[in-house]
């Protein structure tokens, strides 16, 4: 079966150990995570994990069912890239001297629509938000100038289709 990038979105209670519980589901099946991020969601006290994996559709369905089975997980979904709006964020730290000595670096920054976050006498920091290809391209272009540090965030993503978590939580409230 064809492997694809799937974005798994997990809505959960905030519970210490749930991160471990979810990552153990992948570990047990020897599946590598492409990216993992967690944050608050649109609902107070409900948290959201965004996990990207490159696997086939059968596997992702079974994994999402295992995730959803966890007591503190409210609901889990999975989507293909086409079904979501997603971004990644990257930071690049470069020696400040290059900014003045190498004309080319200014063009790279301009062409990539990146932002300079901070400049100090020793270093400056560039920020770029976009798809993996965009942040990757900027990294390649800056590499010859000696990147002091590079870091990329996990994917953050929202689905095009509705997920309906509030409604789900309301049904619980009404039934109890």
């Amino acid at each position, binding site marked *: 079966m064809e492997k694809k990038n799937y974005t798994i979105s997990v809505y959960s209670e905030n*519970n210490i150990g749930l991160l471990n519980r979810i990552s153990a589901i992948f570990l047990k099946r020897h599946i590598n995570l492409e990216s993992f991020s967690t944050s608050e969601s649109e609902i107070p006290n409900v948290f959201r994990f965004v996990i990207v994996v490159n696997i086939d559709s059968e596997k992702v369905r*079974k994994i999402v*069912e295992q995730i959803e*089975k966890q007591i503190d997980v409210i609901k889990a979904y999975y989507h293909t890239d086409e079904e979501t709006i997603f971004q990644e964020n990257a930071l690049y730290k470069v020696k400040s001297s290059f900014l003045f000595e190498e004309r080319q670096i200014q063009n790279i920054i301009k062409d990539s629509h990146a932002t300079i976050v901070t400049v100090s006498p020793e270093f400056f920091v560039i920020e770029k938000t976009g798809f993996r290809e965009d942040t990757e391209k900027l990294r390649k272009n800056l590499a010859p100038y000696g990147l002091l540090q590079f870091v990329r965030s996990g994917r953050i993503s929202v689905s095009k289709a509705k997920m309906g978590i509030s409604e789900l939580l309301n049904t619980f409230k009404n039934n109890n």
Partner: protein
Amino acid sequence: MNTNKQNIKKNSSKSIRISGAEAVIRSLLEEEANLVYGYPGGAIMPIYDELYKFQDKLHHVLTRHEQGATHAAQGYARTSGKVGVALATSGPGATNLVTGIADAQIDSTPMVCITGQVASNLLGSDAFQETDIIGISTPVTKWNYQITKASEIPEIMAKAFYIARSGRPGPVLIDITKDAQFEELDYSYEKCTGIRSYRPYPELSVDSLKKAVILIEQAKKPFIVWGQGVILGQAEEEFKAFVEKSGIPAAWTILGLSALPTDHSSNRGMVGMHGNYAPNLLTNECDLLIAIGMRFDDRVTGSLNTYAKQAKVVHMELDPAEVNKNVHADVALITDCKISLKELTNRISSKKYPQWIDRFNELDAIEKEKVIDGDLNPTKPGLTMGEAIQMINKHTNGDAIIVTDVGQHQMVACRYAKFNQSKSNVTSGGLGTMGFALPAAIGAKMGASEREVVAIIGDGGYQMTIQELGTIFQQQTAVKIVVLNNGFLGMVRQWQQLFFDKRYASTEMVNPDFVTIAKGYQLEANRVSKREDLDQEVKKMIDSDKPYFLEICVEKEANVFPMIPTGASVSDIRLE
């Protein structure tokens, strides 16, 4: 403060000021857990101190190893239908629980384990007997939680029991730091009735129900395979009604055993690796496979590529994650089978399948001639495991709870033991834990004290938890312990014979004198190795009302058949 004098009121909103440790005990009593298994140690001493004060209300069974506590709790849960409870201290006490927890997880046994933990200010400092039991137990628990404040205890305990017993049951571990056990709280208890992120009983789809009825009405060669879900769902009556009205032949997985009496005319035996010939072969001849409360384990299905491909599949299962996991379901009835079975029975017509049943009878006759006759009426001098089980049947009339360990004796016992009532088969199915039976038998007997409990164990597994003889002695638990001694790790030896050219690597055992060991614990103990003595020795054991040990020396190099080799198709089942 003498807290013992205060009454425990159910769901009382009035709170009392007590220690965290006492709150644990009162929570256990609220959940009707008045029997717990465990082993004390530094980090759980405050709770043991309260056990001392509450000993008239709550019986603590001191096992000889924490693993024994978990298996005893499992045995108790399996025969009583209640939640089993095991206590242990931090560090090695907690890690010793892991095998039992993993066993309970894969066999869906309701269990709550409570572990002591180092004081919260020492967490992460590599303190004496500190271990990350939450991290370690996460993949093998249904839920786990670390309590660091006494005020959390009532709510978390209520959640723990609710989660362990509801939906598809399973083990829960609660780790309590020592300071939280000492700390005082305003205690009141309210039972948990729901958790918003947890839906233990999915609602039955009426649409799927209608589709299932159509498939059943159209089928010419329908076949039922049932599992432990029937027992866990307390659906034995509904299941029997369904089987009888539908007229469909039915076979069991190892954990489904005893849900339908052995003598029931629709009971066609066991499926899987060492199951019966007919139900395995006919899995690949039926036109409709109705799977009830089972999860298509690989030991049941053999190769999935050749498993029931010709058949439509109706899967009745409580856990949505089990549906379409291994075998595609044409129709899934995802709910408690107690409900779906009743609904199905009401909607289907009463039928009989004489020609289809004849196929079972034909194949049964082949198995009888090739395998069963030799097992039960052997002509060779050595005793067989089969005739030992047959003799136990004779003296218990099929009314006993049979607890088995793991290996050849387990397969033979499950194939030949007779059962008249449900919750009578206690074995380690999914995990295959050697050492399970002896401690599990203790719990099984305490969970159903009016019933006869016979533990059937191999000489290998027996020695993995043999120290629990001490528990049996101290508690005077009237279990009957049968060791079928062949001087080998028999199942591994069988595989070495069949698949590794008889290279018997580390499977022959030089055993101690088991009778002398049992006598050391002052148990009545006997050994039998001659056919003519078997009847009276088994009778003597069953007639005793005390704990009793019987070693039965059996044929050293016998094999269990039928057998589906690992990864082969159910159609490739071998009779010799």
